[in-house]
């Protein structure tokens, strides 16, 4: 519920900074509305966006924790209750092929669990809107492809989404791993504080270049033109197979939401 009501400090700070920095008058009006939106959502306990998202839960479970009952069920029920009690819109349907209509709240979350040393459980909840997930892409590039090709692929994905992903955007990039893991790498990159640059120099260089090229596109806030198309790019890298260069871009709207708690 907190993730849906309270703007992340980095997101709000970057939205405020972006005002009057090169968007069109209509685009600047959109930025002002987004800053006001965070205040209203927090003070009235309203979701930041009517699309309260599809929830990803990153669970770091201490290996000394003993469970009484099903951890998976507890998390699913907890997420479902948060949506019901918090007046949040459920947007998850039972089956993508056959049940397109009825929202289903029994298994609303994607849960990724990792075992870590210790006796605590850290849960990070990330509700993400459909419009910006739709704009996300992945590719298995040739292993000899260079940074130029990686950058081109990502900038093209952003350009193709136009205003549909709700710019100004936050862009999570995964480079490496395998077909299945690179998407998760890109999604996890969105958890980083976007005021902090990547630690690795090579990833940092790609971030700077991507942010500059994306902002040269001129999409602007709400697609109304100008310089403010993305507020941040986070690149995460991983090992990979000698034959592979997996690249994924997970685009987030201006309402990048997440919250963590430890039990």
């Amino acid at each position: 519920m907190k993730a849906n009501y309270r703007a992340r400090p980095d997101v709000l700070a970057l939205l405020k900074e972006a005002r009057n920095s090169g968007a069109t008058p209509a685009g600047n009006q959109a930025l002002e509305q987004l800053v006001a939106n965070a205040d209203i959502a927090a003070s009235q306990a309203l979701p930041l966006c009517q699309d309260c998202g599809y929830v990803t839960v990153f669970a770091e479970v201490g290996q000394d924790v003993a469970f009484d009952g099903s951890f998976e069920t507890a998390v699913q029920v907890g997420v479902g209750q948060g949506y019901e009690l918090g007046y949040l819109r459920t947007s998850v349907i039972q089956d993508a092929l056959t049940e397109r209509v009825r929202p289903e709240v029994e298994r609303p979350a994607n849960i990724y669990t990792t075992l870590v040393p210790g006796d605590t459980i850290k849960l990070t909840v990330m509700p993400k809107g459909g419009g910006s997930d739709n704009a996300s892409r992945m590719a298995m590039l040739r292993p000899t492809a260079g940074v130029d090709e990686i950058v081109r692929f990502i900038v093209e994905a952003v350009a193709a989404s136009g205003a549909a992903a709700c710019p100004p955007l936050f862009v999570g990039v995964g480079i490496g791993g395998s077909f299945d893991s690179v998407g998760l790498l890109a999604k996890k990159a969105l958890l980083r504080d976007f005021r902090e640059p990547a630690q690795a120099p090579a990833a940092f260089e790609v971030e700077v270049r991507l942010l500059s090229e994306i902002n040269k596109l001129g999409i602007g806030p709400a697609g109304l033109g100008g310089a403010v198309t993305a507020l941040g790019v986070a690149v995460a890298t991983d090992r990979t197979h000698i034959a592979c260069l997996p690249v994924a871009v997970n685009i987030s709207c201006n309402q990048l939401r997440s919250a963590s708690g430890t039990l």
Partner: protein
Amino acid sequence: MKIITSPLDKRTIESLKAGDMVALSGIVYTARDQAHKRLVGLINEGRPLPVALEGQTIYYTGPAPARPGAVVGSIGPTTSARMDPYTPVLLDYGVKAMIGKGARSPGVIDSIKQAGAVYLVATGGAAAYLAQFVVSAHVAAFADLGPEAIFALELAGLPLVVAIDSQGRSALWPDAS
């Protein structure tokens, strides 16, 4: 900021130019993907619609649930392009304005010109802010669709930008530049 009222009359629509910032009052009807599919299905079968949409404004949105005593939950635009396959049929039927976010297909822009209609955009992601401008809301049709039902909304000065005007001019990237 220009103040306009829905349903929009011909003169008002013709006076709106791409890039104008407007405040919209009056009645609009919400419809998203599934409602569009049903409405166009009914039109294609020659059957009556559950809501008279001639001359009306459609808002692409599915609100969050209202808290007790509140008019509506957070409510902002969804991606308009997903409605593109259905929009020409609705414009032929008599819809005169749409509210959403993002670009439209060349075919939809042509239909907007032919119908003398207008496409407006709201700021995606500002749904708690935009909810303040909704003064009443009730389900008008397709209640079984939950948040995707057709709601009749009464607005008081909803801030919008004219994205595609009745001449087919666009204020949206990449058409604008």
